[in-house]
């Protein structure tokens, strides 16, 4: 094991005693002006592929990596996000982002969550604060996804439609049903997340 303070520098990365800092980012970043230059489906595929490339950055534990992969796959393949927003009943008068913009901004959010800024540069404090916030948010989103998957595994016939298809757990009248009251923590979280998405233009 490397002792504290030893670093090994290669062409692609700097490895310190705590982490491997990747220097070449081209493989992970979306190309410039992607939305205008590529067809619709290709852009989605490019974002999806880059999301998957971030898998080893999210965590070293295979369980969290699996949760992340499942989450991204569900988001791209199965989820009906407009239906979820409608079910939540959150009123908004904000400009509606296109699906591609939402996909790109979500990818950028995930990229931001796995960044680390060099120590001692100007603005280091505010930038690392932003990075820390996005990393904590992503961790929490994955933890909530894990809770949802656990609940679905307990009783798929009842919980899958509630959590993944009809989104009835998120509706403003959910407190009237004792069945849906059980999902109160998930409801609060997802309502906050939808509002966050509206502010930032993402689709998390």
């Amino acid at each position: 094991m490397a002792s504290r303070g030893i670093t090994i520098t290669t062409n692609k990365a700097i490895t310190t005693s705590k982490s491997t800092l990747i220097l070449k980012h081209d493989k992970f970043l979306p190309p410039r002006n992607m939305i205008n230059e590529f067809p619709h489906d290709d852009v989605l595929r490019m974002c999806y592929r880059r999301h998957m490339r971030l898998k080893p950055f999210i965590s070293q534990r295979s369980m969290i990596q699996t949760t992340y992969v499942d989450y991204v796959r569900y988001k791209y393949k199965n989820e009906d996000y407009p239906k979820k927003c409608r079910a939540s009943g959150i009123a908004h008068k904000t400009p509606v982002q296109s699906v591609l913009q939402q996909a790109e901004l979500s990818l950028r959010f995930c990229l931001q969550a796995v960044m680390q800024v060099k120590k001692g540069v100007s603005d280091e404090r505010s930038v690392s604060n932003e990075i820390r916030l996005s990393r904590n948010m992503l961790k929490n989103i994955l933890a909530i996804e894990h809770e949802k998957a656990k609940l679905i595994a307990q009783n798929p016939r009842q919980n899958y439609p509630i959590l993944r298809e009809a989104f009835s757990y998120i509706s403003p009248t959910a407190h009237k049903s004792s069945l849906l009251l059980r999902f109160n923590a998930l409801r609060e979280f997802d309502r906050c997340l939808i509002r966050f998405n509206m502010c930032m233009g993402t689709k998390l």
Partner: protein
Amino acid sequence: MSKPSVLKGCLESLVALEKTKRIPKKPSCDASPLISNFENWSGKPRKLYLRDARSMKRQGLPYELNSNMFAQLLASPMRLDKITRVRAPKELLVQIKLRKADTDISAARGKPFELRPSFGMERGHPTSYVSNSVALVHKYASSAMKWLPSSANSTIRHINQADVATQPEWYSQAYTEQMLGSLREALSSTLMHLGKAPESDPRDVIIVCNPQLPAISLRKSENPFIALATTVLNLYPIKDPELEKVVNNRDIELCSSKHRSLCFLIYRLLAFQADRII
């Protein structure tokens, strides 16, 4: 190969053993791939390294998370909700603290400890969390003893359940009143200092008191470089005449990173009461 020829070869090699030297093969690459691709098997957590702060804005989100109230709420550490047994960020839950009781009220009943909700997210004292919903808390408040923090029953400090005082009404009526009192104070003190705040602060939260708006809504942002939408917190559903008088039918614009505790307090109160309002 026949036996005699093998024997001959063996003898020859033994005789010539001292003279021959094995020349090692030269590797085809300059550095071993073990070293040149060390990042692949270093086994350390990976990060994308940025050498300057500006490239973060180019590669990451173009908006500021620090000044977004929802980002702050969602990024708070996860705690277990004792009612639904699901983990959630602690800012979205009600904090319950086990403390020493006030002598004049509970001592008469012979209970030295009390289990009470606390709204300020303070540190210290054994703590547990329950859902921030008046419907759920009201439903389960009769079995509030189940919400006793698990650290109260460790091997070092064993607290008997009979020594803890708790009442169902502390979780709904008294809790709301406590929050309201603190909200009135915080809002009026904020309003006093609001005029002195510099103009450069981003105003991303608007407090209104309007019967036509929902409790929490979003409005198109005037400064699209910070966020696409501004949060509107409506105090009308709380139905408190004193607050309505303080707001006085105007829009109070706040900077959420400067007045974080006030914004969180309003959010928590609106979310707590949401089930009762609708």
